[in-house]
């Protein structure tokens, strides 16, 4: 039907794929468990980030929801691609509203896992990193922590440390009342 071909949803390209994946990969295991993503593909993406290899996978398709939300946000911000500013604005600020909306309708998720929130690195072990967050001290995976050190402020998402945060992002995120 012709009218079905005139959808307004146009995907924008992801410019900063590594940054996007640092925030999206943590959800990957949930997608694998739900049968929506192959574990092998997730491992390849994970290794690409860790080894700083080129990403030759269609990540817009793998992480359809996050890339579509970033696309909408980029358009709202007057951009023609999904750059680092869009990715951070989505995952650090807008993502929380979306997660809470979902939880309200279907309470099958734990906010503590799904929300992206800030924390301070207390200790880096060979296989894990201890981070102090508003919800207490917890261990996170150290997959993407190259170059990070004790006392760095970082964003955490679903058991992973996504990236080191700048002060202005930390302050904006810490103003929120709760993360659980």
């Amino acid at each position: 039907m012709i009218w079905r071909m005139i959808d307004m949803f146009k995907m924008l390209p992801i410019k900063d794929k590594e940054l996007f994946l640092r925030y999206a990969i943590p959800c990957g295991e949930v997608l694998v468990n739900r049968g929506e993503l192959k574990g092998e593909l997730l491992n390849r993406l994970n290794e690409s980030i860790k080894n700083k290899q080129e990403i030759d996978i269609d990540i817009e398709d793998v992480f359809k929801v996050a890339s579509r939300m970033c696309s909408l946000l980029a358009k709202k911000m007057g951009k023609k691609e999904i750059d680092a500013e869009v990715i951070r604005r989505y995952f650090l600020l807008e993502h929380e509203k979306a997660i809470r909306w979902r939880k309200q309708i279907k309470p099958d998720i734990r906010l503590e896992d799904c929300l992206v929130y800030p924390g301070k690195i207390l200790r880096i072990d060979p296989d894990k990193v201890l981070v102090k967050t508003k919800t207490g001290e917890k261990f996170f995976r150290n997959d993407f922590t190259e170059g990070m050190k004790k006392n760095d402020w970082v964003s955490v998402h679903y058991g992973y440390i996504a990236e080191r945060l700048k002060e202005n992002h930390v302050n904006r995120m810490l103003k929120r009342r709760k993360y659980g």
Partner: protein
Amino acid sequence: MCIALKGKVLEVKGKEALVDFDGVKRKVNSEFFKVRKRDKVLVFNNIVIERI
């Protein structure tokens, strides 16, 4: 987690659709996908992001 919810369109009014998510009904923004009654859709953050 950025996993959309599956729902069924109950009614459409302009750019808004009433969607049933397994018994929970919500008005959502359908401006990016033209939807019709009985369509199955994926919704996230109150926005239809795909028809299924």
